[in-house]
Each structure stands twice: as C-alpha cells, then as structure tokens.
C-alpha cells in the first residue's frame, strides 16, 4: 500500500518485509536492541531524555509539542506509581497513521513504551485504542502476549530486575477522548470530559498519579532515536522539525494512503507520490493537518513544505499530518457543513461556548447549504467562532472554529453565491 523508501522510514519500515507485524521480523532488524542496551547498561533516565530532546521529536498527535520537554516535566523523585499512556484514539478526520503502526509494526510501539516507561520511572503503561478499530485492539494485545512470552514485559524484564507491564484499553466512540485528560478520565471508567488544567498530567494524571501521554507515532519513533541517536533523527528532518513523519493523504488523490517522508518535504512531492489529483482534476483546496487545521487554497499549498513551522507560517497547522485533498468539483459549503456537524456531534457538552456554539455554527452552515442562508450569516459565523475560541477547557472549541473561519475566509465568494442564489457555484 504505502511507498517504501528505505532509510527515512522510522515507523512503517516493516512494510517491505514478510510478516511485518511479527516479533521475529522486528527483532531480525534490530528490534528491542535499544531497550536491551538501556537495561544492560542501566542507562540513566536523563541520558535518554536528552537524546529525545536532541532529536527535536515533536508530538505526532496534532499539537507538535516537543516530546523531550514533555518528558522532562515528570517528577523524577516522586515516590509512588507513575504511568505512561499511549494515545491511539485516532479519530481526527483524515488521520489514519496510528492504525497502520498497530497493523504493521506493533512491536516498535511496545519497545517505545518500554523505553518511555523506563525513562519516566513508570510502573505500567496503557495504550488507549480508538473504538472503531477493534481488530487492531485485538492484534495489539496479541503482540503484547508475544512480547510477554519473550520476557520483554512483566516481572524482571530481560533479567534486569525491572518490572513493567503494558495493557490495551479500548475506547467506544468519542472523538474527545483524543484530548489527553479526557482520555485519562475514560481509562478511569468515566465520561470522557477533559479536565481543567493545571494541574497537568505530569503531576496529576491517571488515578491522580504522574502520567505522560504521547501519541502512537511519537512513541514508536523512540526506539529509532535510541538506536541511531537523537542527532541522526534530527537530520532526517529539518531544524526544530526532527525526523520523518507519516502523512495520511486522503480525498481526491489517485492513491490515498500513508507516506512516511522527512519533515520539510514539499507538498508537491507528497501529492505526486499519491498519484496526483484524481483523474487529472485541478487542485482546489487542502486541509493540511486533519480536519481541525484551517483549510488552505491549493495554489498556496503547492508552494509549501510539510513541516510544523512552514504550515504554521501559512496560517494553518501540520497537526497530525492528515492531508485532505479537494479538487475543483468540491462545494466548499457542503464540505464545511459535514465538518461543522462533526464538531457539533463530538462536543462533550462541558463548556457552554463549545456545546452551544458548535450547534449554532452547524445550523447556519446547513441553512446556507440548503438555500436558506441570510446575508448576515457569514459575519455571524465569524462572530460565534470568536466567542468559542480560547474560551473552553480544551482545544475542541478552537478545533471547531478553525475550519469554519478558514473556509469562509478563503472561499467567501462561494458562500456568498450560495446565500444570494440559493444554489451552488460549483457546476453552476
């Protein structure tokens, strides 16, 4: 499925091998060597965290926060249990990379969680797996059994005297649980409503214990960093944007799929790898980082490189690396109607601006799409957005506003045409 590019693939390199997900395949190519070395040498935790800092690995779940810095927030001399949690609650429309890591390289995630657990002094780790991918929940549990049988998990790992275990926790359909404190609430057996911060999870996390939550791709990158060094990872990408990154490209391309390429690769290259815009159509718009990222016009996107800083400078965000491509046949009003429904549906209901505002925005976009728009609607949308953004406990409010404001900004004429003519400009 995905293109195989040797050397720059950090997470999906097993794709070119037979039985990509097996322990045998992983160990035959250097798998679990990093944790063996760490345990054999009793490597100080500070050294591991330093390598992660040098690598400039930034969180792959969407926020892009520096992983080494996040790890350094964990209290080192805390007496009691600490936890490492992996966030595989992959439900940001357009994002489908973590599922492929579970399918094709589950052991690298296990090794990454082992290294993180060791470096952060955790007693156990949980991997929160998106409800809709039950098959991968089951297959990852099988990989855990394989690792346990090989002495890589549980009591006295590899004879080192270190005890650590990993478990899978299955979600059951709530986008909000991708927010790290909602995810913790969910593991605790509650509604997944985000917590007020501070305190942050590093001081009050799972069961009130110090906890670090990282994305699947982030944790799966750790063994590579420890094996090859933080500097080598940094050099795969560009300054402040270390490593390769999996880009999930979907929508109107000939070959949708995952492409793991260095950060800083031009968007035009990724588009070409994905076979170009389908059937020779013209590129109209791109959402570069999952549905929450502001949309950009196609011509703007064609000049950009895919890294956190370049996309941010252009007014959007790299997010989870989910690139949604739209060609000239797309009605932007209709596309926004679907996205705005998503945020309305998935708001957890805790904060009034988000709970009420997402529904309000969706109803306005819906009436524009269905020929009942009013001249004041576009201003109203922007105004409501301004009253949601920055006024909620978590980022879902801002995430809901990003698409609305950017669609209206970049494709205003289409929205106005809908309101005035009560029909669509596309194909008119």
């Amino acid at each position: 499925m995905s293109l195989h590019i040797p050397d720059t693939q950090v997470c999906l390199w097993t794709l070119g091998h037979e039985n990509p997900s097996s322990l045998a395949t992983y160990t035959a190519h250097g798998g679990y060597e990093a944790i063996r070395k760490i345990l054999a040498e009793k490597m100080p935790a500070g050294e591991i965290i330093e390598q992660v800092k040098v690598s400039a690995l930034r969180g792959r779940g969407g926020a892009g926060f520096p992983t080494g810095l996040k790890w350094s927030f964990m209290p080192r001399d805390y007496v009691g249990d600490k936890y490492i949690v992996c966030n595989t609650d992959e439900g940001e429309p357009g994002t489908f990379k973590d599922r492929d890591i579970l399918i094709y390289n589950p052991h690298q995630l296990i090794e990454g969680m082992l290294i993180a657990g060791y470096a952060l002094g955790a007693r156990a780790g949980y991997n929160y797996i998106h409800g809709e991918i039950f098959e991968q929940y089951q297959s990852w549990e099988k990989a855990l059994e394989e690792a346990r049988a090989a002495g890589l998990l549980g009591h006295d790992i590899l004879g080192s005297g270190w005890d650590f275990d990993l478990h899978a926790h299955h979600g059951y359909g709530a986008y909000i649980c991708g927010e790290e404190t909602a995810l913790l609430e969910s593991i605790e057996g509650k509604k997944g409503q985000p917590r007020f911060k501070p305190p942050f999870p590093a001081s009050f996390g799972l069961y009130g214990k110090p906890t670090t939550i990282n994305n699947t791709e982030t944790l799966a990158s750790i063994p590579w960093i420890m094996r090859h060094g933080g500097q080598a990872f940094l050099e795969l990408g560009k300054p402040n944007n270390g490593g390769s990154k999996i880009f999930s490209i979907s929508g109107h391309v000939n070959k949708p799929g995952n492409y793991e390429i260095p950060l800083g690769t031009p968007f035009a290259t990724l588009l070409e790898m994905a076979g170009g815009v389908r059937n020779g159509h013209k590129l109209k718009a791109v959402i570069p980082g999952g549905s929450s990222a502001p949309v950009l016009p196609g011509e703007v996107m064609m000049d950009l490189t895919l890294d956190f800083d370049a996309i941010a400078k252009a007014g959007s965000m790299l997010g989870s690396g989910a690139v949604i491509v739209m060609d000239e046949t797309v009605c932007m009003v209709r596309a926004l109607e679907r996205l705005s429904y998503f945020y309305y549906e998935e708001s957890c209901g805790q904060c009034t601006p988000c709970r009420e505002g997402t529904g309000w925005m969706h109803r306005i976009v819906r009436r524009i799409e269905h020929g009942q728009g009013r001249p004041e609607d576009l201003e109203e949308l922007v105004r409501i957005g301004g009253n949601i953004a920055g006024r909620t406990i978590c980022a879902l409010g801002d995430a809901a506003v990003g698409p609305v404001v950017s669609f209206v900004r970049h494709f205003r004429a289409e929205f106005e045409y809908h309101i005035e003519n009560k029909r669509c400009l596309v194909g008119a």
Partner: protein
Amino acid sequence: MLSQEALAQIDQEARKYPAEQRQSVVMSALRIAQAELGWLSRETIAFVADYLDMPAIAVYEVATFYNMYDLEPVGRHKLTLCTNLPCQLQGADRIAEHLKARMGIDFNETTADGRFTLKEGECMGACGSGPLCLHNNHRMHTHLTPESVDKLMDELK
C-alpha cells in the same frame, strides 16, 4: 443476566487495572454485555453496575456518552457508515444511497425483519481506505463499492 463466559471476559479485562480501580473496566464490561445481548437495556446497565460495585447512574453516564453503545434494540447486523469529509470525498454518499435503497430504510432505522440497522458514523481512522463501514462495531469493511456492499449484505443473514 450475562453468561459465565461474558463475566469471565470482564474479569480478564479487569486484571489490567489496579485492584482498587475496578471502575476502569466499565467500558469493556458494557462492550462485552452489548456483544452478548445485542443492546444495553436499563436492566443490563444496572446489572453491570452491580457487578462492578458502581452506582447505576455512573454506568449509565458512560453508556450514554460513547456512541458505539446501543441504548435501543438494533438489527442482527448493524452497519455504521462513515460519512465524514474524507470518506464523503471518496464516495460515501453514493454508498449511503445504495445502502438505504437496498435496505429500504434511512439512517438510524432498522428493517422490519430485524435483519439490518443502518447508522451514520464519525471518523473511524481509516480514511485512506474509504468509503468504509463497521459491522456490529467490531469488523471494518473498506473500499466500499455498490457491488461490494451487495456482496456484504448477501452474506449477512
């Protein structure tokens, strides 16, 4: 109310969590109960609450918060079609129309013979393989075409 096998599965899941954090298993317990009984009635929710020594309202909160739990009876085969933007761009609307026409029902309805329930779903995290649907929450069918939908429906008796 639940079989010994189901209770054993719940106990197995519970071993993942610290003994004093039994509530952590509630999501799995509800999933296992739903898989066995088809949907979650008030009685089932109360039973799970008793079994986990939780207040019934706390279990009810969880059951109503996560959208893969069914609080009303569904058909033997529940198909949940993702219609979110990436799937929509890749033809989910055509698949939705086809499913509705073949089943003779709309979203959130069940066929009169109790065979199918059709749901509209949110992102399932496999957009590169869309359009796609979930069968009874646990099995994903990807790259849907009207032909593959026909084949799938014929297989589901």
